[in-house]
């Protein structure tokens, strides 16, 4: 029983790491209808920038601040060069543009800052902590707390600032938002910048876990099932989806994987997502599109 609980809890905590990546997707999808495949590349870019700045001897806070500035500038450039020329195009076109964008960002990140694996120390010890009889990793606890904090900040941003209200207006009805004078381009820049910062947080945590390297951008493939289980349009969904995927993945690897040869984590989340979708085609919390002919 303790073993089961440990597996479950470890999975749930790992799931919050997936949620962190998925939240970046949801933000951009809600505000601009773009399925942003480049989120993984942005995460890699942010983490690499931070590590490179720290290697220059900058203190933690200053490096963090500078990385945030870099991500904001990146968001403005992306909005100018990719989103604005493609406005009003089909969603699939925008998705493919972000595929191209991910190539550009990955190439830039590795070209400018090198491809070798960098260690990142956030000063959190990865030591086991005992909750009663159940052993969990301290790092996982910190990561989960960070995710919770991030969601709280985002909720505050969305619900009680002027920018947040405009963001929600754009997400709700782009045309109506435009007609009451909301600057759509500015909103997109802000959203992409915020998604970049969320990417930075996720990148730091993932980077501290497995080293800052190219494979960090593949985290995006981990986040996709989370995203479709929760629904593209719900931050809460991203959290719940992450928890479900994390827990199910851990349990399946231990209890099912052992019988069919192991190594099932790459696809298990996707098959799980498929089953969920078959029952709820727009995810658990996604908006069901009403189709009119």
């Amino acid at each position: 029983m303790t073993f089961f609980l440990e597996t479950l809890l470890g999975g749930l905590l790992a799931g919050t790491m997936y949620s962190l990546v998925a939240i970046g997707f949801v933000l951009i999808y809600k505000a601009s209808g773009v399925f942003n495949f480049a989120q993984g590349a942005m995460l890699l870019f942010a983490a690499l920038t931070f590590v490179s700045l720290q290697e220059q001897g900058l203190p933690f806070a200053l490096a963090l601040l500078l990385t945030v500035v870099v991500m904001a500038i990146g968001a403005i450039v992306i909005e100018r060069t990719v989103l604005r020329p493609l406005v009003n195009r089909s969603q699939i076109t925008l998705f493919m543009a972000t595929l191209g964008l991910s190539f550009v960002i990955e190439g830039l990140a590795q070209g400018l800052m090198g491809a070798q694996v960098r260690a990142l120390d956030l000063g959190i010890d990865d030591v086991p902590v005992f909750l009663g009889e159940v052993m969990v990793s301290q790092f996982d606890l910190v990561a989960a707390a960070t995710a919770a904090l991030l969601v709280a900040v985002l909720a505050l941003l969305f619900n009680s600032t002027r920018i947040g209200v405009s963001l929600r207006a754009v997400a709700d009805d782009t045309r109506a938002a435009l007609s009451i004078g909301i600057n759509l381009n500015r909103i997109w820049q802000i959203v992409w910048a915020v998604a970049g910062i969320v990417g930075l947080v996720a990148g730091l945590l993932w980077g501290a876990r497995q080293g800052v390297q190219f494979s960090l951008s593949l985290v995006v493939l981990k986040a996709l099932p989370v995203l479709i289980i929760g629904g593209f349009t719900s931050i809460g969904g991203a959290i719940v989806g992450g928890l479900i995927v994390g827990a199910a993945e851990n349990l399946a690897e231990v209890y099912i994987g052992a019988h069919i040869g192991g190594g099932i984590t790459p696809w298990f989340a996707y098959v799980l997502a498929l089953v969920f979708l078959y029952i709820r085609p727009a995810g658990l919390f996604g908006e069901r599109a009403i189709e009119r002919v």
Partner: protein
Amino acid sequence: MTTLSHSLPAAHDSAPVELLRRRLPWGLLALLAVAFGLVPWLGNDYWLNAILIPFLVLSLAGLGLNLLTGYTGQTSVGAAGFMAVGAFATYGLLLRVPGLPLPLALVGGGLIAAGVGFLFGIPSNRIKGFYLMVTTLAAQFFLEWVFTKFPWFYNYASSGTISAPRLELLGHDLHSPLGRYLLVLGSVVLLTWVAVNLVRSQIGRNWMAIRDMDTAAAVIGIPVDRYKRLAFAVSSFYLGVAGALWAFAYLGTASAGSFDINRSFQILFIIIIGGMGSIAGNFVGAAFISLLPLLLNQAGQWLLGGNVDAGQLQNLQKIIFGVLIIWFLVKEPEGLIRLLSNLRERLAIWPLRF
């Protein structure tokens, strides 16, 4: 009843209106003559092995994905998974069925891939758009895992790789570059001809109706679910044959890793750059995708004289590739094929313009 038929006397007598005037496609015939006649005579092994064979196989794979994504509107990022099924199934058939001719093994591999594609197409009756796209990743990762984890598929080889046990047609050995080129070319021409007619048939028109709006297609009485599944199956058949050719005619030795997610993206790029919903576009897109890295490599060495290290060159290639994709999407969303047809129309009226 009688009055009605009397009031319309001419309806049966008049010849059917000629809607589509069919001309002999001279350009296409010339191209085929070059491909079958001139290339084998002129082409050297490097050209056949490194450029023409991968180009043709990628065109075929693009064609398969285009039937699903460009014609039926079901975006898939699991193309390479179905290619892997085709490759491993063809291998299994050649290995375990003695005396089975190569074309039959290819078709058999394609049919098995079609079956798998049909299975993964079943959710398309409820899941749409991006949600469906992500579920096709399930196919990609699951199939990759299956072909790595179960040694039966690669005949318990310690390396986990497969290579064609025999590559011959009617007693002719096809192991030479020329033989493999002709095998690929023959398969591609045949399957392209089928595809051209398929998309013009009732099936193709139903697919396009579903692509344009599946709810509307259902309203006018098209069995949407069945045609979506059919599209998955047919697309997977093409991808399966392409996968088998990729493994045996191009690579020679393949493993599940030859069909990873990057291959899926590569094929997706072929149809975006070439043109969605266009048969000829696949060939243009495949030519672009397979030639661009070679050109960038050459240009890099020529400009920088080998002073720059390979890693940086690769990063630069990645950036250029990404920029080109975005640029194409911004400038010409209908792909290179549209660019070419615009150019042709312009040249036809040159030097005057409307």
